[in-house]
């Protein structure tokens, strides 16, 4: 018996990283549009026009990827039980060094919430992004509202993403392995996804 447990299949991981890379591209190519200070980021793509092209197509990839990723985990992500509510109430125990771990399924409640937020945000940004794709194609009011929504969701997404990245890396050692190799250590599973561990361990 090994000390690791399979967590994510190959397809699942490829999809995640596809979404992650497209997100990164979107951020890098979009920052230049966000504020003059970040205009230099366009140089990464050979100039603003090219950066905008990258942003547009990365956006398409990101939108489709996000939806697929969500759908592939929808069953898990959309089911909340009493433990999840407890987890949320205690903010996952992140506010204390020695909080009691509340047993969670394959994904904890925070991850589920983030998954749902991510797909909603992706849809909103995708839709508004399509409007902004050609700012002269739709009514001025719609375009103007799209700019606003796009930027609001970008900011929310950025904050969410920082939290996601922190918690998935140094904030929770061992988490990243699951998304890198597809397997997590048993200790990780036991600690972070007790119910899932039990279920998997039984088999």
């Amino acid at each position, binding site marked *: 018996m090994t000390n690791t447990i399979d967590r994510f299949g190959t397809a699942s991981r490829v999809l995640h990283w596809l979404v992650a890379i497209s997100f990164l591209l979107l951020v890098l190519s979009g920052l230049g549009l966000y504020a003059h200070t970040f205009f230099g980021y*366009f140089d990464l793509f050979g100039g603003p026009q090219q950066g905008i092209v990258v942003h547009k197509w990365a956006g398409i990839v990101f939108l489709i990827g996000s939806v697929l990723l969500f759908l592939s985990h929808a069953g898990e992500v959309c089911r909340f039980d009493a433990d999840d509510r407890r987890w949320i109430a205690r903010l996952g125990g992140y506010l204390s060094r020695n909080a009691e771990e509340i047993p969670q399924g394959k994904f904890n409640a925070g991850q589920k919430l983030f998954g749902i937020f991510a797909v909603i945000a992706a849809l909103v940004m995708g839709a508004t992004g399509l409007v902004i794709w050609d*700012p002269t194609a739709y009514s001025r009011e719609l375009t103007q509202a799209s700019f606003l929504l796009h930027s609001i969701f970008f900011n929310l997404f950025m904050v969410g993403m920082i939290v996601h990245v922190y918690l998935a890396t140094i904030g929770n050692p061992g988490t990243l392995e699951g998304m890198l190799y597809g397997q997590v250590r048993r200790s990780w599973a036991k600690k972070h996804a007790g119910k899932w561990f039990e279920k998997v361990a039984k088999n």
Partner: protein
Amino acid sequence: MKRKAFLIDTTRCTACRSCQVACKQWNKLDAEATVNRGSYENPPDLTPLLYNQIHFIEQEQGDDLRWLFINRRCMHCADAGCVKVCPSAGALYHTKEGLVAYNREKCIECHYCVSGCPFDVPRYDAKQKVTKCHACSDRVQNGLLPACAKACPTQALSFGDRDQLIAEAKAAGKKLYGENDLGGLGVLYVLDDEPGTYRLPKNPAIPASIFFWKDVVKPLGILGFWGAVGVAALHYVTIGPKKLDDADDQPRKGGE
């Protein structure tokens, strides 16, 4: 440098449209194919090849009739929506004279300015670059009047120091449009009627959504970004990561 502005006195305009042509001549803008749509007004709207135009407005007042003419163009706002939304620094900018000019080299073809403008002025040309009235910034820089203002036979269209134009108009008892809107427009009008009659917004303002986007969400977002990073770092050093118990990773005894 004192802020410059146009003063358009509609009560002096005869709609000869030299402004339209002088602009095309100086800026070397081709003509477009048009048809008569039952009006003298042509082309029907500003285009990438038409930076200013005369509107013809017929208005009945009892037995009397009025035929109003107004020159429409970029308003050169102090608080310019287009400049506000333009991501490329220096693509759309205020000149030393306070006029809104642009540098086509720097235009990144994003079209944001089109929806950022409260007056629906900026257009994109065939090369997908922004075009609009730039108050002949090349001429003004070199001490010449903009082509349209120079050509206007009746001084309906004058150009000069904004403060002076305002002072003169007020001294002549004329009511001005655009003195304080949007930080003060760079195109001031003397109107013979309500702004609406001339197809001008009564209280022009940058669209609320643009304001929220650029003046609220953008700074908040940057604050949020750095805030989130800071919170994460703080969390890492104060509360710390959820460390794993390595013992749990040892293979279960028994079964060997």
